């Protein structure tokens, strides 16, 4: 059964069991062992495959060599017959027969190696699929368990802090209210700044005869009078 299938079954049953786990702790250990074994099997199979494929290539080369040799010997036998040396031709024929036996042996070996490498490739594919499936199973089991336990902690925390005794609607209202308060405060500050901004305030203060600006004209007049008096005194 698929992992999600197992979770669905558990959900339909008792939700309590979900925390107990999709695959119990022992199951997880078994899966982990299987993943480990399958990984080893894959490594071994890959190693074997390299050897088998090398032998497959070697036997292919050998077959090629034997075929060339048979052709060469056949040509020699024909030449011997042409030169009317039947005994010699028969000796060559005996060698060809030996080479043919070798060819049969190598062809059989080659077929065996090819079959072995196909089997090893299938084994690797199957083992990889097994590893993926088990890993997914363990991952999902752990994720479900972890979410369940986290949710338990969160629920307990929410209950004990009393923060969620108020409902979702109330929570939303409070957040919105706070947001509106902030927006209102910002709008009010804005208005205030426009009505009684830095400049407006300075002007009002000056009008009331308070601050630097209010006395500026007087100060300038004082300075001019002082210079004039100094100049008059100099002339005198």
């Amino acid at each position, binding site marked *: 059964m698929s992992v999600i299938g197992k979770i669905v079954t558990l959900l339909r049953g008792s*939700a309590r069991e979900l925390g107990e786990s999709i695959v119990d702790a022992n199951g997880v250990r078994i899966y982990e062992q299987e993943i480990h074994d399958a990984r080893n099997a894959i490594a071994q199979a890959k190693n074997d495959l390299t050897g088998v494929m090398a032998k497959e290539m070697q036997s292919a080369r050998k077959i090629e060599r034997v075929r060339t040799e048979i052709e060469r010997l056949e040509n020699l036998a024909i030449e011997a017959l042409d030169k009317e040396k039947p005994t010699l031709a028969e000796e060559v024929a005996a060698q060809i027969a030996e080479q043919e036996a070798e060819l049969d042996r190598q062809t059989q070996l080659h077929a065996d190696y090819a079959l072995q490498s196909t089997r090893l490739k299938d084994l690797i594919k199957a083992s990889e699929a097994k590893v993926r499936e088990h890993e997914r199973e363990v*991952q999902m089991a*752990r*994720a479900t368990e*972890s*979410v*369940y*336990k*986290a*949710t*338990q*902690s*969160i*629920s*307990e*925390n*929410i209950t004990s802090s009393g*923060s*969620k005794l*108020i*409902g*979702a*609607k*109330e*929570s*939303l209202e*409070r*957040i*919105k209210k*706070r*947001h509106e308060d*902030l927006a209102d405060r910002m709008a009010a500050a804005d208005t205030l700044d426009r009505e009684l901004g830095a400049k407006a305030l300075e002007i009002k203060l000056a009008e009331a005869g308070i601050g630097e600006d209010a006395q500026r004209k007087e100060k300038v007049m004082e300075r001019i009078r002082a210079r004039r008096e100094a100049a008059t005194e100099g002339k005198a």
Partner: protein
Amino acid sequence: MKSLQERLGGLDAVLSARLGGTPISLQPIPGEIPVIQTVIGGREELPIFITVSDDQILCICHLWTDGEIIPEKRPELLELLLDLNPAIPLSSFGRAEGRYILYGALARDARIDDIANDIAALSDNAIDALDALSDYLS
């Protein structure tokens, strides 16, 4: 393996910067597995819980409980949640222990920036979802 708190080092600063300087508090909560509670200033009612398993980081925001759903509107709400799921960026609806949640899942090796991004989106989405779906709640 690094503790969840170490893993989330600097998250408060990054998240706060992303939210324009909003104060952020990260607080571990007691329990069998590590869970960190993230509280965003001004959104104290909707904390975000961060937990980590072998393969993923989950950021969870609790929306409402089973009991809060108006019974006759329940089937419609459930279908709506399914329809909404693919449309909401980064966050998905779910249910755990009778509580409806909005959550984001990240790879275990996600960067702090990505986690902050997910949490900011989750918080916005949660408020948005509550606002949009409050007609279904009592």
